[in-house]
C-alpha cells in the first residue's frame, strides 16, 4: 500500500476504524496521591477490553488538591462500555469493590451529562441504614460509615453517548526492544491528552486480534498477519525486516480526543526516529464497514 515517509518513519496510507461507545468519568481521591492512584489502578486493573472485561477503563490524569472536590489528591478515571446497562454494572461493581474498599478513599462525578449513572445512589445501601444523604447546592453526596471513617460518594455521575473506542496505532519495528521504546514513547504522549485513555497494560497491547477463529466459541483470535513468527506461513502485513509489532488502542470521550491522542502518539514515535524506535506506523481497521469513525494516519501527521 502507498505510504508517506516522515523523518525516516514510514506511515501507511491507512486508517484506524473505531466505534461509538458509552462512557463515564469519576474522580477518586484519598489522603495521599499514592492511595488515590492505588484505588484507581485497582478499579481499572482488569479493564483492557470490552470483549473479556465488560468495560475498558484507565486513568485520564492525576489531579492536585485544588482540582478535586474535597481538596485532596485525586485521579480522574474514564470508563467505556458498549451499552449503558453494562457501563452502569461495571461502574457500580468496580467502585464498590475497588474504591469503597481502599483506605481513605472518596469518589465523585467527573463528567457532566444530561443522562446520569448511579454512583453513590447504588452504593449507599452498604451503609445499612446509617448512610447520610447530603445536598450541597446542586450536588448530592452520600456519606457511608466505614471502618476508617466515612466513604463519601457523589450520588450520580454523567454519561456520554458520544464516546469513541478503538482508535489505534500499530508500530512495526526491527527488534522487540526498539519497538517497545517507540510504544512507550507514544503511550506516554497519549497519557497527557485529556479525555482519552489507552486501556491496555501501560497503554500497550502485544496481542492484537482479528475477528473470528477456527475454533468454536472464540470471537477473536491472534492477528496472524502481524505476527513476525508466522511471516512465511500466512499472508503477512509485515516487512522483511519487521521483528516485533506493538499496538496502542485508544478510547476517548469524544472523537476529537481520540484524534488528538493518535496525533500525539504519532508525533512521539516520529520524534524518537527509526534508529531508536520503529521504522513504520500502521493502523487496524475492518475495511471501513463496521465502525463509523475513521482516523486516517496521513491526516494525523504533525
Amino acid at each position, binding site marked *: 500500500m502507498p505510504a508517506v515517509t516522515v523523518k525516516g518513519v514510514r506511515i501507511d496510507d491507512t486508517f484506524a476504524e473505531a466505534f461509538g461507545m458509552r462512557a463515564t468519568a469519576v474522580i477518586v481521591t484519598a489522603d495521599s496521591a499514592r492511595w488515590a492512584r492505588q484505588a484507581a489502578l485497582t478499579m481499572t486493573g482488569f479493564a483492557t477490553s470490552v470483549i473479556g472485561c465488560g468495560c475498558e477503563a484507565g486513568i485520564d490524569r492525576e489531579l492536585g488538591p485544588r482540582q478535586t*472536590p*474535597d*481538596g485532596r489528591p485525586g485521579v480522574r478515571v474514564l470508563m467505556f462500555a458498549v451499552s449503558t446497562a453494562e457501563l452502569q454494572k461495571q461502574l457500580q461493581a468496580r467502585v464498590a469493590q475497588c474504591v469503597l474498599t481502599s483506605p481513605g478513599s*472518596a469518589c465523585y462525578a467527573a463528567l457532566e451529562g444530561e443522562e446520569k449513572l448511579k454512583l453513590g445512589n447504588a452504593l449507599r445501601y452498604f451503609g445499612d*441504614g*446509617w448512610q*447520610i*444523604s*447530603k*445536598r*450541597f*447546592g446542586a*450536588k448530592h*453526596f452520600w*456519606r457511608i460509615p466505614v471502618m476508617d*471513617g*466515612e466513604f*463519601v460518594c457523589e450520588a450520580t455521575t454523567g454519561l456520554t453517548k458520544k464516546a469513541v473506542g478503538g482508535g489505534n496505532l500499530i508500530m512495526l519495528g526491527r527488534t522487540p526492544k526498539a519497538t517497545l521504546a517507540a510504544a512507550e514513547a507514544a503511550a506516554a504522549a497519549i497519557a497527557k491528552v485529556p479525555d482519552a485513555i489507552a486501556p491496555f497494560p501501560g497503554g500497550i497491547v502485544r496481542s492484537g486480534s482479528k475477528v473470528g477463529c477456527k475454533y468454536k466459541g472464540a470471537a477473536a483470535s491472534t492477528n496472524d498477519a502481524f505476527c513476525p513468527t508466522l511471516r512465511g506461513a500466512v499472508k503477512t502485513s509485515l516487512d522483511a525486516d519487521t521483528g516485533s509489532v506493538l499496538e496502542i488502542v485508544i478510547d476517548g470521550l469524544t472523537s476529537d480526543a481520540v484524534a488528538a491522542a493518535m496525533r500525539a502518539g504519532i508525533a512521539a514515535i516520529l520524534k524518537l526516529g527509526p534508529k531508536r524506535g520503529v521504522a513504520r506506523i500502521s493502523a487496524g481497521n475492518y475495511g471501513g464497514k463496521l465502525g463509523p469513525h475513521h482516523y486516517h494516519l496521513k491526516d494525523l501527521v504533525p
Partner: protein
Amino acid sequence: MKPLTFTLHQRPEQRLDLSSLVPHFLVGKTAAQIERIELQTTRVRVDVAEIFRLRMGDAEYLRIEGASDRFDRVGEGMTAGEIVVEGDVGIRAGRMMRGGRLTVHGTAGPWAASGMKAGVIEIFGTVADCLGGPLAGEMAGMRGGTVVVRGRAGERAGDRMRRGTIIIEGEAGSYAGSRMIAGTLIVGRKAGPLPGFLMKRGTIVLGAGCSAISPTFVDCGQHELLGMRLLAGFIDGYSKRGASLLRRPLQRLAGDMAVRGNGEILIGNRN
C-alpha cells in the same frame, strides 16, 4: 445595572405585606402600575406610592431603602433575581423562596426562610425565632437553598428543616434544629439548650457547643469527617467562619435516640 428602588417616606402606621414586591411579579410593569400595588394588612388601604418613593430600574434587581420591622413577607415566593434591603424586615422574610437572592442589611423577624426551597438569603443582623421553620400545620420547614445569618438567631432555628443549609455565624437560641428531618444547620458560636431536640436525620454543627445537650444523644468520639471537609468547600463562599469550623476535628453525637436517631450533632472547640 440600575436597580428598581423603593425608598421609605416614613415609618408605616400598620404592618405591611411586601410579598408583591418580588422581581417576577414586577417585571414588565410600569411605574404607575407598581405604585398602585396594595400593601396593607388592615382595612386601611395603603399602596406603594404612599409608602415609598419609586425609582424605576431593572425589576430583576430590587432595592428597598429605609426598611422597617413592619415590612412583612419581604421576598416571599421569590423565584429569581435579587432583593437588597437596607434596614430591618418583619416576619416571614424569604418564606417559600424558590430562587434568587435576598439580602437584608438589618434584622429579620420570625419565620424568615420558612419553607424555602431554593435560592440564597443573607441576613447581616439577628433573626428572631423559627428561622426556616414551618408555620402551624405545615409538615416541613426549609426544603432547600442556603441561609446565612451574620448575627444571632432566636429559638428553634431550622425547626423541621428537610433540606438545605443554614449558617448562623453568631449564637443560636434554644432548640436549634429541633425536629429536623434532614439538612445542615451550622452555628458558629454557642447554642442554647437542647439542640437537635427530636431530630430524625440531618447535621447540626455547633462551633462552641451548647448550654445543655439532651441525654438522648450518644457520644461517638472525635473525628475529622471528610463529608464536613466537602461541606466546608461548599460554604466557603458564603461564610469563611463556618468553613473554618468544619475543617477541624469535631465531636460527634448521634441522635436524637428518642426518635429515629439518624441525626448528628458535631461540636467544635471554639470558645
